[in-house]
């Protein structure tokens, strides 16, 4: 018994060390992104329609020239649980894009205005073209980017996340990344074509600060009327809006999922309660039942 209890103690002690040895910084020396509050977090979370519409505007005017949204169709923009554009708005929007179609009767490919059923056209015809236009780096597609990015939570926080349902690591990171462009710290050289970012793993990111398209160096918007719904145009607001839009793009059925979940949970808990009572009743027939 002494041997095994010593093993047990040693193992426990070691696991304690292991927990303490977690580095404060995420991989590559980047800082952990600050936690944001999102309308879509938690079991009853829903997207903020106005925020998604603003985020779509940011995506379209700032990101879309390099980052595709190839798994989304225009029609998705008017589907329930999304930005809530009307079908008419989506039809009009689609016609502003050109897509390749064909072949026609003459056997030739032709361009036509997009329809709501078309997918968003890709910004580059292929990866090589994307590389050539972007200093050798391929700008990733944005369809599922909000689920493809994260940061390490570390033990024991990821266990708490099971209960708290914190799963917005991806969007917290993207928002932080957009706001994380800074002058490099003293003594750090950033190679040509790279930019220093507080939250990017390794701190050196190929993408330049995209917010310069909306804001000047002092953080003032080039166009104070950028948002038409009266929302103040700040760097934080714009970053959060586009990130929320990306979350919807990655998980367009999230509202349906959570709302179905509430019903399923209620039903299962009720059923479990009834089964428990039935079980007790049946087992009480036994002498000495516990």
């Amino acid at each position, binding site marked *: 018994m002494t041997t095994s209890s010593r093993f047990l103690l040693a193992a426990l002690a070691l696991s304690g060390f*292991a927990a303490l*040895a977690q580095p404060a910084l995420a991989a590559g020396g980047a800082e952990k992104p600050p936690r944001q509050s999102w309308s879509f977090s938690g079991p009853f979370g829903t997207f903020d329609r106005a925020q998604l519409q603003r985020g779509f505007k940011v995506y379209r005017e700032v990101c879309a020239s390099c980052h595709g949204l190839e798994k989304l169709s225009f029609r998705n923009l008017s589907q329930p649980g999304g930005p809530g554009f009307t079908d008419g708005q989506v039809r009009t929007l689609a016609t502003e894009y050109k897509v390749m179609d064909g072949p026609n009767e003459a056997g030739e490919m032709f361009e036509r205005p997009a329809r709501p059923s078309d997918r968003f056209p890709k910004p580059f015809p292929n990866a090589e073209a994307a590389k050539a236009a972007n200093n050798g780096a391929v700008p990733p597609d944005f369809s599922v980017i909000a689920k493809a990015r994260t940061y390490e939570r570390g033990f024991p926080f990821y266990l708490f996340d099971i209960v708290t349902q914190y*799963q917005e690591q991806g969007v917290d990171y993207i928002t932080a990344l957009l706001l994380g462009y800074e002058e490099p710290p003293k003594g750090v050289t950033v190679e040509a074509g790279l930019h220093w970012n507080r939250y990017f793993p390794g701190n050196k990111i190929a993408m330049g600060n995209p917010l310069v398209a909306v804001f000047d160096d002092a953080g003032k918007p080039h166009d104070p009327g950028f948002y038409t719904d009266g929302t103040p145009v700040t760097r934080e607001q714009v970053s959060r809006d586009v990130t929320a839009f990306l979350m919807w793009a990655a998980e367009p059925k999230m509202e349906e999922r959570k709302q179905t979940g509430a019903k*399923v949970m209620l039903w*299962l808990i009720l059923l479990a309660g009834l089964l428990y009572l039935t079980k007790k009743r049946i087992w009480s027939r036994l002498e000495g039942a516990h």
Partner: protein
Amino acid sequence: MAEHHSSYVPKTGFERWLDARLPIVRLMHDSAVSYPVPRNLNYFWTFGGILMFMLVSQIVTGIVLVMHYTPHVDHAFQSVEHIMRDVNYGWLMRYMHSNGASMFFIAVYIHIFRGMYYGSYKAPREVLWILGVVIFLLMMATAFLGYVLPWGQMSFWGATVITNLFSAIPVVGETIVVWLWGGYSVDNPTLNRFFSLHYLLPFMIFGVVILHVWALHHVGQNNPSGVEVKNYKKDTVPFTPYATVKDLFAMVCFMIFFAWFVFYHPNFLGHADNYIPADPLKTPAHIVPEWYFLPFYGILRAIPDKLGGVVAMFASIAILAFLPWLDTSKVRSGKYRPWFKFAFWTFVLVSVLLGYTGSQPTDKVVLAIGGRTVMDMVFFAQILTAIYFAYFLIMLPLLGLIEKPKALPASIADSVLGPAGSGHIAGAHAAPPKH
């Protein structure tokens, strides 16, 4: 409890006619209604039913997913997103299937540890246990193959790392790897055959599960006291309604746990990297298998030699099959074995810690004194691996010889009611041997 006779009485003319030709109703009656169950089973015994539910759930959701999935390197990732976006309740099918794999393993690990604690592998249940080990192996293969199908970064690189393990086999290793890949790297032929095998293996699991249940029903269930059934009337209850309602209740509780992840936290158990389409030219920063493989991955990386690591990893699973003969104790249930209890819980802890080492970079410092590294992750994993194997090869053989077990109850009924009362069960009786 070796034999119990059928208590099935055909009621209608059709039932009598069928029973004389194909006694299938009798079989169902005997195995799911009158089958005698030890009356002292605790809730750890409900995981067999839960596992059956998970297997069916995986097969049903899997079959629906196949209707919309395309096993081709250019379309696999896209088709999974198509399921998530355009297929009615596709998100539900896919999240049930991907989280279902984890739930399956949670349940199977509880099931295995339960068997180990209560000595369920001991005679006459050795074959039952070995069939369980076979199911576990098939499950691991199925889960690995399935994880490759979405063709994300972790899919691709996980497949690359695991198939490369076979190159450690002397002489024929490289040939085997090329044969597994169907080419000179993980590519479209690999994805195609993995898809084919991922569809095949669950049905093989189903087949072995039938053997597993058959063996179980032949030898009867073990129970927390580890004492065999002596008197059917006193020690057992009929499967229906007693075990049926208890299993159902436990199953629904497990479904609540399952639903928590499916509806509210569907990507918690996966990797963000797998939402990046597979890129053979870009290795992810950390290639980490799914959580349920981590202890074995920890053992693999603990051995500095590649072949040694592969052998140790497979040995760590294969050794389970020898458990019935490695444990020398005459007493079945760990409840009456004070020293075994310590060894067992140490083993559980070591398994969890091995999983932790498997999830971490190998050069990570575990223990440093005064800035000097005393222990890195590899060394830590080596200690844990040694304890893991010591449990099977030293502890279990030795403990049976030197340990003094506590007094066993005279019967199952005694363990429930105390030695004084062991009265009759009011109401229905389990099928007793025919008088």
